């Protein structure tokens, strides 16, 4: 790969964190939608291996998938609700706004960290051009 792979790696981090933020926003938006299953983002790292001193293969992080978290839904007794079952219970999503907000903060901070890393790589490459001045 090119000498700019530091930038590519940080860009993959930015993409992954943005995807995570999207999923969190989706969970929060559906916090009161009956039948909705909370979604989680599965992140996987791509191995970093320098094939030779200047070449490099892979690196960074990818979104391996977005899946339901598998936790049971919350049954709320609301017989007047048109979505209630025969016993008068509505299955509400297992979304906890506090969990989502903390995840959102983590994701946002990680995004910032990747942006800073990208900036550092960019400054380093700019310094290389300065040698020729």
């Amino acid at each position: 790969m090119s000498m700019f792979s530091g930038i590519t790696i940080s860009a993959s981090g930015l993409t992954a964190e943005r995807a995570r933020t999207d999923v969190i926003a989706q969970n929060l938006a559906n916090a009161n939608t009956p039948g909705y299953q909370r979604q989680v983002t599965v992140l996987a790292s791509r191995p970093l291996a320098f094939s030779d001193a200047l070449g490099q293969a892979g690196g960074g992080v990818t979104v391996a998938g977005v899946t339901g978290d598998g936790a049971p839904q919350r049954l709320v007794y609301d017989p007047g609700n048109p979505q209630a079952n025969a016993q008068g219970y509505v299955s509400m999503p297992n979304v906890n706004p506090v969990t989502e907000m903390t995840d959102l903060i983590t994701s946002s901070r990680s995004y910032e960290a990747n942006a800073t890393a990208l900036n550092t790589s960019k400054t380093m490459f700019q310094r290389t051009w300065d040698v020729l001045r």
Partner: protein
Amino acid sequence: MLFDVTQQSLELGLQGSSLRQQALAQNMANINTPGYQRVDVDFHSQLRQALERTPSGQIAQPNFAPAHPGSDTAVRVDGNTVDIDQESSMMAENALEYQGYTSLLGLRRRMLLDTMKLNG
């Protein structure tokens, strides 16, 4: 002076710190990946070993490979060993080092140009 050991060391230093920057960026990108083991490039000791093997003239190209050195700080519950504070300080340190190498290379280049002008 043009291609002496100092020049070669500076070039290898640039190479090494550039690869280290990639490793640190990789760690930051995987700050939320469960089970991720941090990587680092210990180019200093590899460069020193290469210099020790070199009596004079050409330095043998050291093998700057990423390794999993582990973390000094506690491992998180999800098995991730990245500590964001450690990584950012290492990245700042590495960028300064890179800046030092480029400054020295630029200086040597200008010295060479000045010497050439003496004859012109």
